[in-house]
């Protein structure tokens, strides 16, 4: 029984929110010409829009849910590269300036990491000519590619999984690992789980609890100048752009969280920090890249974590019914699927 979280939102409403989201948060950072082309696109394309890719001298490319599409000079969608509007160096220069609010100097750290988070919590990936200083990336000088990833916030994305993640007797949140290949709605799901855990779920008689989010890649909360742009609940503290292991320790020491949430664990220090959190009696919510748990168990660090029996629930995501399909939820102690 696989369900798609997007199905929970009425079709008409989804459309209108996506279009307004794009026009309010994405269009202001695009150069005028590209802005105009995207405005003219039909709503059903905008609704599926996941990424806008600007590459110098190459056609403007829009990644949609299933495939990608280019845009002609007249603002019509096309799949023929020759007809597509070609992004110029001026377009890119303007886009970079608009993305940084004409303050590239204020984003030196972000550029070093290869992305800038814009207002609304959307991430813009950057590549181009890198300058190094003693073997470390200093900055990206000539920016030739931009990838604007539209962060979808689907309130209620976790509605279907929450009953499985909360102990019906003790009303405590289970240690949970979300496993998913890239672009399957992992971040969308963890964000909504965080929101619901933080706010509390009256239907499940679950009281909200303090959540500490260590958001190394600024994706979960989408912080813009440290302020979460996504709804992560009002009992949530966010350490933005903070290394996971260190951030978890900081949270444990100072913020007294009942639940710690992070994105994409996999390094050795992460495992140590997770154990530290467990010893402090904190519930852990995290994600890992992968297809299913057998695949994840191939990786030494993750296998170690799983063998320690840290996690009580594993949620796997896939695309069998579109992005965000919950393929399975496993009760780790018994190894049984809870959805079938």
């Amino acid at each position, binding site marked *: 029984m696989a369900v798609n979280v997007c199905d929970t939102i009425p079709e008409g409403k989804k459309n209108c929110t996506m279009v307004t989201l794009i026009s309010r948060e994405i269009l*202001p950072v695009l150069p005028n010409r590209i802005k105009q082309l995207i405005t003219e696109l039909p709503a059903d394309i905008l609704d599926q829009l996941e990424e806008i890719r600007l590459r110098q001298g190459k056609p403007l490319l829009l990644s949609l849910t299933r495939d990608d599409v280019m845009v002609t000079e007249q603002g019509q969608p096309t799949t023929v590269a020759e007809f597509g509007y070609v992004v110029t160096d001026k377009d890119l220069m303007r886009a970079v300036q*608009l993305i940084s609010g*004409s*303050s590239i*100097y204020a984003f030196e750290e972000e550029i070093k990491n290869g992305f800038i988070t814009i207002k609304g919590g959307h991430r813009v990936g950057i590549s181009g000519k890198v300058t190094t200083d003693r073997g470390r990336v200093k900055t990206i000088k000539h920016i030739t590619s931009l990838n604007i990833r539209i962060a979808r916030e689907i309130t209620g994305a976790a509605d279907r999984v929450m009953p499985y993640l909360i102990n019906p007797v003790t009303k405590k949140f289970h240690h949970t690992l979300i496993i998913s290949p890239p672009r399957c709605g992992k971040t969308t799901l963890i964000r909504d789980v965080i929101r619901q855990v933080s706010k509390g779920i009256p239907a499940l008689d679950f009281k909200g609890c303090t959540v500490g989010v260590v958001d190394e890649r600024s994706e979960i909360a989408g912080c813009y100048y440290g302020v979460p742009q996504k709804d992560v609940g009002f009992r949530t503290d966010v350490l933005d752009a903070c290394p996971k292991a260190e951030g978890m320790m900081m949270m444990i020491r100072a913020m007294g969280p009942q639940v710690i949430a992070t994105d994409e664990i996999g390094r050795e220090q992460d495992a140590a920090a997770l154990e530290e959190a467990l010893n402090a009696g904190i519930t852990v919510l995290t994600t890992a890249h992968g297809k299913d748990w057998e695949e994840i168990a191939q990786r030494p660090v993750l296998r170690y974590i799983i063998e320690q029996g840290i996690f009580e629930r594993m949620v796997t995501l896939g695309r069998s019914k579109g992005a965000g399909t919950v393929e399975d939820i496993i009760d780790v102690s018994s190894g049984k699927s809870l959805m079938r």
Partner: protein
Amino acid sequence: MLKLIGACLILTACANFGFTWAGIYEKRPRQIKGLEGALQLLETEILYGATPLPDAMEEVALRCDSEIAGLFRETARELRKMDGSTGGEAWQRALDEFFPVTALNKQDVHILRRLGSSLGISDREDQAKHLKLTKSQLAAAASQAEMNAKKSATVYRYLGVLSGLLLVLVLY
């Protein structure tokens, strides 16, 4: 009697004209110096605070010489509109608006315009370099303006009063 009143009027008008003209000459070095100071503030904001440009501009507007605060306030306002224009363009537009109400001449404005094309487009060190360059150019312009002012202001004051007198004598 009427003649006397007329003569007085002519004299004050001409003298006033001369003094205003001299005032403009004296205003220019003062305003250039004010700009220099303001750019120093902007450099501090960018280099040590990494403050985003709109905030940095507002901060400078609050703290710099009130005669030139308008330029920075206007730039911040243009930037906050978020209408797809860059920092450089906002700066140019603010300059267009601001230039006519100042005593600056074309060369001074040219120096400021050149700064606009590099505003906010690079890392902190590079921004500081551009700001330093602009400041040194303004400093040169200021010393030149000061010399001009010393010479011209007196000349224009005398010229105003004397031409008034001359006119009165001719007409009397």
